[in-house]
């Protein structure tokens, strides 16, 4: 059987090991399917292009999902069939299957499951299994205990399951900031610390829209690339809030989180700032310059790809081959620019507004 992630096939002991991993993961999926109706909490979330039925063995985890996920109000004609997602913990469900050997490691799981037409990952630090079967349209996140969950789960619960279930030929989820005006927008791409979140917050505080500063849904349609929000929350550190005249102790901000950042619902902070859909016009690669005025300089498609792809591939693993191709299609389709950021948030927002309306000065 061909591996959809690599196109290669395993052999020998690795093949047997892969077979056992895949059998174990199917046992998790079977268990999830059998237990789903009886789980402590069940919720339905409509994401761009896909409705998710989410069941949790913990009510607290369902509340995390409600806090983070944005419900799409848009009805899309080409929406994909619903996916069932089960988020399970062994404290609530002692019969949850467990892997009776040493940690299999992330590479073994990804390779094994790709060989058997599943998406999967294993987090050895937290002993969490993530498995998605696209044919059965069911996914499971199996963890020892919700109390011992990774701290980043609160910002985006079951991130990998959402990523895999959002993935289809022309749709996917990427890791990038966005800003827009009157339905048109730009991606903000780059490594952490490059200024994506700060630029996004500067923009919405000065009248621009956004689909998110972190994870967004993208759809590549003939002649256009659309971006939609999937999360309610943005985040910013205390210094970043201070630069914009905001205080972390304001009621809009929760935290600090595990990164020392404060989370907030950006539509609550700035009503009208959440765009339902942005038609994307460019990829911007921001860099703090300290100049008085922000400026744009043309970037190559290769530079756009090198700014856009690594953070997405790092945060959203398991389907690298497909995601690499999707990100490349964005970098080829959209013009890219280096954006040298001034130190004036209002000036930055104005420069991006002018750019979206008129292109480069």
């Amino acid at each position, binding site marked *: 059987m061909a591996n959809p992630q690599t196109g290669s096939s395993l052999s020998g002991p690795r093949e047997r090991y892969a077979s056992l991993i895949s059998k174990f993961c199917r046992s998790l999926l079977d268990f999830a399917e059998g237990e789903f109706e009886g789980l402590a909490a069940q919720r339905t979330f409509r994401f761009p292009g896909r409705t998710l039925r989410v069941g949790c063995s913990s009510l607290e985890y369902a509340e995390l999902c409600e806090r983070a996920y944005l419900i799409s109000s848009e009805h899309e004609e080409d929406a994909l069939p619903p996916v069932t997602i089960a988020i399970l913990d062994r404290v609530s469900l002692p019969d949850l299957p467990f892997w009776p050997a*040493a940690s299999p490691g992330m590479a073994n799981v990804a390779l094994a499951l790709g060989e058997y037409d599943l998406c999967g990952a294993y987090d050895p630090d937290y002993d969490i299994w993530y498995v998605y079967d696209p044919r059965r349209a069911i996914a499971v996140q199996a963890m020892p205990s919700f109390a011992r969950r990774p701290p980043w789960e609160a910002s985006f619960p079951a991130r990998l399951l959402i990523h895999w279930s959002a993935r289809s030929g022309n749709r996917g989820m990427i890791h990038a900031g966005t800003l827009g005006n009157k339905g048109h927008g730009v991606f903000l791409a780059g490594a952490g610390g490059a200024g994506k979140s700060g630029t996004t917050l500067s923009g919405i505080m000065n009248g621009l829209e956004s689909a998110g500063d972190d994870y967004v849904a993208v759809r590549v349609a003939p002649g256009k690339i659309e971006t939609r929000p999937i999360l309610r929350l943005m985040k910013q550190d205390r210094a970043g809030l201070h630069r914009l005249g905001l205080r972390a102790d304001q009621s809009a901000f929760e935290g600090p989180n595990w990164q020392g950042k404060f989370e907030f619902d950006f539509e609550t902070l700035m009503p009208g700032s959440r765009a339902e859909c942005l038609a994307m016009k460019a990829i911007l690669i921001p860099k703090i310059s300290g100049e008085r005025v922000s400026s744009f300089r043309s970037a190559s498609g290769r530079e756009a790809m090198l700014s856009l*792809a690594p953070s997405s591939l790092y945060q959203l693993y398991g389907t690298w081959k497909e995601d690499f191709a999707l990100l490349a299609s964005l970098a080829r389709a959209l013009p890219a620019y280096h954006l040298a950021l001034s130190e004036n948030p209002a000036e930055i927002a104005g420069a991006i507004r002018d750019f979206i309306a008129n292109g480069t000065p």
Partner: protein
Amino acid sequence: MNTHSHSANYTVASADIVSEEFDGEFVVLDLSCGKYFSMDEAASAIWRAIVSGVSAQSLAEAAAASGTVSSVSIYEFLEKLVAYGCLVASDNPGSTEIDEATLQKLSASDKPPVVEAFDDLAELILADPIHDVEESAGWPTRKPEAA
């Protein structure tokens, strides 16, 4: 130092090596280890030619004829890609003719081909050992109580 004879040919190392082109420049990703590579125009022209079945010798001869990129730099570049795991030496003689666009790119370049390697993704998927695991009658459904 070139460890292969100049008659050696090269091919993409495995299906784990995927590449995407942007206006004549390639970004290459090794799915097996997370390393990725960025190639300038000259490097990209050589990569495209090798992927399409042009022989290393044809490329070296074209470079020598262009007078701008030396044949030595072509082989050094190909060996670097072998060291990175993107290419392997092959006994299969390349049968594809070198195209005009590749010739022009090699003629236009006044410096050796450049490939940059990045390993910031690699920590995610370091190769893992496989461990013994016994498959009993179905999967254990309950974790044994700690002693």
